[in-house]
C-alpha cells in the first residue's frame, strides 16, 4: 500500500510518513512519523531546534545504533536519543552507572535524532523514499527472539570486582556529602537569622524531635483520651436517656441494613434452596 503523504496544515500536523520494513523478506510495512523538533523551551542544549528530528512509532526491536544507521541516509547524525514518551530528556540527571540504571525501556519508543546540519532534517522531512527503509540487513542483522534473550541473560551476569569498585566510589562520595550536610547543620544550629529566629537542628546541643505526621496524630489522640477520661458516663439523667435512645437507633439501623440485604437477596432469587 502506498503511504499517503501528509502535508502541513492537515489534521495530522506536519508529520512525514516514512515506511519501514523489518527485512527484505517481510511483507508488512510500518510507518515512522517524523517532523522537525520544535518546542517553546529552547534551553535544552542537547536538542538544537533546527537540527533535531523528532521520530515517532519506533518498533520495539529497534536500537539506538539502528536509528543512527537509518537516518544517516539523510545526512550525518551526531546523536540519537530513544525515549518511551515524547518529552524532555531524562538523562539530564547525573550519568547513571551501568549497574544501577533501572530497567531498560521496552515496547514502542520515540527518538530525537540530532543531525550535524539542518540540511539533514530537511532531507528527512521531505524524503519520499520509493522503497521502504529496511531495518535488518544481512550485514547488520537485528537480534530478536531467542538470540536477544540469550544476549540479555549474559549481560545480566556482572563482574563482582567492577561492581565493588563502583560501589566504593559511590559510597565515598555519599559519605562526603553526608558529612558536609552534617557540618552545615551543626554550623547553623543556634545561629539567629535576620529576624532573630533560631534554628534547631538534630546536630545541635539540644536536638529537636523530628516533626512527623504520625507524631502529630499521636499527640492529638492523647489529648482526646485525656478529655474523655474527665467526662462522666451516664451521670446525668439526660445522658442516660441519650444512651438508650442511641441503642434503639443502633438496632433500627441494623434492622434497616438487614432489610436491605434481604431485599437484595430476594431480588437475586437467593432464597430458592434447590
Amino acid at each position, binding site marked *: 500500500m502506498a*503511504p*499517503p503523504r*501528509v502535508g502541513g496544515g*492537515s*489534521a*495530522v*500536523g506536519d508529520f512525514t510518513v516514512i515506511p519501514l520494513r*523489518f527485512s527484505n523478506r*517481510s*511483507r*508488512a510495512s*510500518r*510507518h515512522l512519523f517524523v517532523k522537525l523538533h520544535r518546542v517553546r523551551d529552547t534551553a535544552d542544549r542537547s536538542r538544537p531546534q533546527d537540527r533535531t528530528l523528532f521520530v515517532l*512509532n519506533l*518498533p*520495539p526491536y529497534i536500537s539506538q545504533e539502528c536509528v543512527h544507521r537509518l537516518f544517516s541516509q539523510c545526512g550525518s547524525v551526531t546523536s540519537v536519543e530513544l525515549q518511551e514518551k515524547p518529552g524532555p530528556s531524562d538523562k539530564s540527571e547525573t550519568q547513571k552507572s551501568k549497574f*544501577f540504571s533501572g530497567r531498560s525501556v*521496552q*515496547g*514502542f519508543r520515540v527518538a530525537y535524532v540530532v543531525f550535524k546540519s539542518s540540511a539533514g532534517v530537511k532531507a528527512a522531512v521531505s524524503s519520499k523514499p520509493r522503497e521502504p527503509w529496511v531495518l535488518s540487513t544481512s550485514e547488520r542483522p537485528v537480534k530478536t*527472539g*531467542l*538470540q536477544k*534473550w*540469550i544476549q540479555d*541473560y*549474559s549481560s545480566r*551476569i*556482572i*563482574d*563482582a570486582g567492577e*561492581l565493588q569498585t563502583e*560501589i566504593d566510589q*559511590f*559510597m565515598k562520595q*555519599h559519605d562526603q556529602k553526608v558529612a558536609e550536610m552534617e557540618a552545615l547543620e551543626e554550623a547553623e544550629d543556634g545561629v539567629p537569622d535576620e529576624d532573630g529566629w533560631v534554628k534547631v537542628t538534630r546536630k545541635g546541643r539540644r536536638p529537636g524531635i523530628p*516533626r*512527623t*505526621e*504520625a507524631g*502529630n496524630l499521636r499527640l492529638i489522640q492523647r489529648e482526646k483520651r485525656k478529655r474523655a477520661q474527665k467526662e462522666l458516663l451516664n451521670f446525668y439523667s439526660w445522658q442516660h436517656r441519650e444512651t438508650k*435512645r442511641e441503642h434503639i*437507633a443502633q*438496632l*433500627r*439501623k441494623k*434492622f*434497616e441494613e*438487614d*432489610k*436491605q440485604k*434481604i431485599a*437484595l*437477596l430476594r*431480588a437475586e432469587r*437467593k*432464597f*430458592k*434452596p*434447590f
Partner: protein
Amino acid sequence: MKRKSPETDLHVAEQQDLEKIQDAGNNSDDGEKDEEIEKPGKRRNVMKKKQTTDAGVIGAVKLSKRELYKPPTNEELNQLKETENLFHSTLLRMQIEELLKEVKLKEKKRKAIDTFLHEVKNFLSNIPETKQVDVTDQSWLSKGVKVPFLQMPYNIKGKFHFLPPASVKVIGSYLLGTCIKPEINVDVAVTMPAEILQAKDNLNQRYLRKRALYLAHIAYHLSKNKLFGCVKFGYFSSNHLKPILYLSPQGKDEKLVTVRLHPCAPASFFKLSRFHPSKNNVRVSWFLEQESAQGENDEPPTPHYNNTILIDLVMEKHLHFLFNAATDFPGMKDGIGILKVWLHQRELSRGYGCFSGFLASMLVAYLLSKRKLNKMMSGYQVLRNVLQFLAVTDLTQNGISLFQDTDDSVPSLQDFHEAFEVVFVDPSGFVNLCAEMTTSKYKQIQYEAQKSMEILDNKTVDGFEVLLMTRKPLLQTFDHVFHLKNLVKLQEGCKKMKLLNDLIDHGGNYIVTILPHLLSLLTRGLGQRIHLLTHSLLQTSEWPINADPPKHKDSRCLSFGVLLNPAFSANVLEKGPLADSPEAAEFRDFWGENSELRRFQDGSICEAVLWQGDNMCDCRLIPGQIIKHLLQLHVDLPKSSLCYVGGLLDSVIEVEKGHAGSEEKTISVVQSYDDLSRKLWNLSGLPLNVTSVQGIHPVFRFTEVFPPVPVKPDFSFYMKAKNTKCLLPSSDKPCSVYVPALKVICHMEGSGKWPQNKDAIQHVKAAFHIRLADLLHQQHQLTSQPSTTHVDVYKDGYVFRVQVGYHREPLILKEIQTPDGMLKYRDTEESLQLELETIHLPYLTSTLHGLQQQHSAYSGTCRLAKRWVSAQLLSNHIGEESIDLLAAYLFTQPAPYSPPASPQTGFLRFLNLLSTFDWKNNPLIVNLNGDIKETEYAEIKNDFVATRTQHPVMFIATPNDRKSSIWTKGRPSAPILHRLAELASQSLRTLERQLMDPLDNHDLKMVFRPPLDIYDVIIHLNPRHIPRYSEAVDRPKVTYNRGTLRDDAAVKFLKMPVVDHDPVQCYLRELRSSFGEFALFFYDTHGGSLIAVLWKPQAFTPQPFKTSHINAKMLETKENGLQIIPNVEAIMEDFEILGAGLVKSVKALTEKWKI
C-alpha cells in the same frame, strides 16, 4: 434449558465472557472516549454493552436523624427484643421467613389441589368390581397394565377380587401443611375393603401382592381417564415391596402436584402382635419353593417384612398423632419445613432408608412429648432443638419410643434393637420408623447435626447460607468416594456371607440385604483411618404402568463416601495382635493372606498387614487398597466392579510416577533451604548480623505446582561466561532445563551505619551481596553469583536467590518532606512493592507453611487449583498468592464441611467457592492462625461495605491485611474474575458428572484443556524452546535433552546453571509491553505450547491523529479525514519477529480487526 454437552456449554459461557473481557478493554482507555467521533452503524455491537453501574451492591444505609430517633412503639420494641432473644439476629429471622415463603405451598394452589383430590376420590369409588379368582391367575387384568410387583416366587395360594375402596383419605404432610416445594406430594390412603383380604394374608407376601393387584386395577382405570396427565407406578421410599401410584393432573397443572395412592388394609384387620419383630411371616420353604420339614418355631424372624405391613395399618393413626401435636404450635410447621430443606440439601431425605420428612415430623412430636420443645417456640428453635437432639443421641444404641402405656404384648426396645440397626418406635409401640436405616446413615445424620450445631454457634459464618442454602453433594462432602458397579455380583456376596434369612426378610432384594454387612465389614477394616463411612441411598424411579417393575439388578451403582481421619489414614502398617494371642487367628481370618508376622522394634512379634505406598500421594489411597482387598476377600467382589475415586486427578500435578512425589520433592527443597539459612546465620565476617532469613518462593509454602528437582548441568551443553563460574544458554541447542530462582529474604540488623538515602541503600545492599557470595564460597564452598539486587547461591542442585533486606527501607522510600518541614509517609509504588516482598510475603509463606503442617491436603489442593487456573491460560491474570489464599480459606473456614483431607475434594470445593462466592458484597476473610476474633469479623465487613468501590473486585482479608487486600490489587480484573467463575462452574459440573458415574471411561483431563475458539490469534511455539514442556497436561511424547546430568554423575567442580531463564516468559513480557494496549495474552505457564491472543475492540476504532497514541498504528483516509488505525498486518508480523526462533506460526482465527 437442556444441556447438550459440556463442551458446547463451555463455549457458550466463553462467548459471553469474551464480550465482558472486551468490554473491560473499552473501559481501560477511558481517557480517549471524549475524543471519539460517533459513527453510527460502524461501531461494533459489543460497544453498546456498557458495564451496568454497580447493580446489586449493598451500600451503607442512610436513615434520616428523625427516622432513627423517633420514639419507639410498643410493637416495635417487642419485635426488636424478640429477634434478639429467639434468633441470633434480625438477619437470620428474615432469611428464614423468606426461605419459608419460597418453599411453602401458596393458598391459591391449595384450592386447585383440593379440587383435584376431590375428583380423584369420586373417581376411585366408581371403579367397577371384578370376579373372584386365584391370586396367581392374573389374566383378568387388562393388557395395558403390568403388576407392579416382583413376584418371586410366583406361586401362592389365595383369592382376589376388586371392590371399590372402603375409604379414601388424605394423609401426611399435605394436611399438616408441612409439604414443601419443589415436589408437592399429597399422600392418599386407599383402604381396601376387608372382604378382599383373608385371614392369613399376613403370610408369604400375600397381603402385599393383593395390594399390588388392587393398585394395578386402579391404575388401569385411572389411565383411561383424561383427567390425569400422568399415571405411573413407583415404590414407596424405594421399598420394592410397597408399590404406590403416582397421579398428576392434566395440562398446565401437571407440575403442580403429585398425588400418591397408598392402598392399605383396614386398621383393625390384622392383630398388630402378629408382626412382633421376632415373629416369622415368610416361610423359608415357600421362599425357596421347597417342601419344608421345618416347624413354625424354627423359622427365622422377619422384622423388616413385618414392619413393611405394619406401616400400612397405622398410617391413619400417625396422622392423628401428628395433628394433635401440631395444633396450637405454629413453630412446628415452620420447623419441619426448615428441617426438610436441611435434609434435602444433605441428600438424606429420599431413597431406601432415608430420613424422610415424615420421620422428621415424628421426631419433632417426640421432642414435644418429652417437653424438650414447647408450643411457643419458633421454627428456628425447633430446628436447633432437633439438631441438638440428633447430635447427642445415638439411636443405634439407645432407641426411643413414642409408645406411652405399658403393655406386655408390645415388644420392648431390646427386641427392636436385636432386629434393627436404628430404633425409633411409633405411638402404637409396634412399628420401627427407622427400620430401613443403616447405622452408617444414622452416624452421618448425627455428624451433620453436630456440624450444623457448630455452625449455628459460630458467629463468623453465615449460618443460614451454609446450613440451608448450600447443597452438600457426596463428592464434595467426603474425602474419598467409591462406587460399586455390576450390582448383580452382590448376589454372590449374599451367598458367601450366608445371608439367606435376611434375604427372605427383605423379599429377595440382595442389595439392601448385604448393605449393612458390607458397611460393618468396611468400618471394621478401616478402623481408625476414617471418621465416617456412608453410602448413597438406593433410589428407584417411577415407571409407566404398562412396563414391568425395575429389577434389583437395574440399579446402576451404589456409591460410598469416606471421611478420612488424616492422622491415621495414610499409615502404611496395620498392626495386629501378638502372634501367640487368641485374637491372632481372628485377625488372620479378617485380613486373609495379606496378614503376616512381623517383628517390631520393641521386640514383640505381631500379626500385621503392610500396604503399599512409596510417597504421600500413594499413601493417601491406602483406604482404597483396604476396601478393594476386603471386598474381594469377604464378598467375592472382583476389583473391576469397584471404582475408587480418590486420587484420579493426581496425574496432572505429578510429572512422572516415581519414587518421590511432589510433596517429597518440596520437603527436600525445604531441607536444603533450612541448611542454607543456618549457614547464613552463622556466617562470620559480615559487618552486620543477620536478623532473619525468610523464604518467599511458593515452594517454601508447599504450593509450587511442580517443585524444583536438583539439577546438575552438563557443561558441554552450555556456553561459558568469561571470568565467572556461570553457564550461559546457547542458541543452537534446545532451551536448557528451567531452574527457578528460589527467593530468600535475608534481613540485616538495623544500625546507625546504614545510610538514610535510597540510592545509597541500594549500593550498600549490593556490597552485601558481593560479600555474602565471597563468604559463602570461603566458608562453605558454595558457588554463588552476586548482582546488584541479589546473590544466587547454587546448593544441592537448587538455586537460591538471596536478597538482602533492611527493615527501614520501605519507610525511607515513603518519606516526603512538606515545605514546612513536617515528615509525611505516603505509599509509593516502589515502597509497596518492597513491603510486599520483604514483609507480607515472608509472613504469608510462614503461615501457610504452618497450615500445611496442620492439614496435609493443603499442598495438593492448592497445587491442583493453580494447575487448573494455569491450564485455563489465566495464570498471569490472577495473582499466585490469591490462589494460595483461596485454597487456605477452604481449610480455615470449611463450613458446612470438615476441612478436606484429600486434594481432590479440596479442588472440587475450590471450584465451588470460585463459582459461587459473591465477591460484590462480601470480603473473603481468610483467618490464618485464627488471628481474627469473632468481633473483628463484623468490623472488617462493615469497613468493606462502606468503601466497596475503592477496593479491587476480589477482596481477600487476612489477619495482617484487613483493609486493603494487597494480593488482589490490579488483578484479577472484573471480567477475568467473571470468566474464572464461569469456567469453574462448568468444570465443576463436568467433573462431578464424570466422577459420580463409574460406568463410562471418562477423560478427567477434560477440564484441564482450555477451549480456544474464543481467541482471535493463536501463536504456536516450538516445543524445543519451552523449558517446562514436560509439565503439560497431556504429557508430550517427545522429550528434549535439556542439558542435565543424572543425579549420580560425578562432577569435579561446580558451575552456576542457567537460572530463571524461560524464553516464553521473556517473549510474553515483550509482547505485553509492546502490544498491551491492543490485546490480552493468555498462556499456560506449565508447558503450554501456544499463546492465545484476544484483541481489545476499543483499540480498533479509528482515531484522530495524536502523538501520544501512535504506537504500532498507521494512517488511513476515512470519510472524515485522516484517521489512525492499528497496523494489524505489522503487529502480526511483529509477533513473529519478537519471538524469532521460538514462534512456530501465528494463526489468526478471526478477522475481527477489519473495521
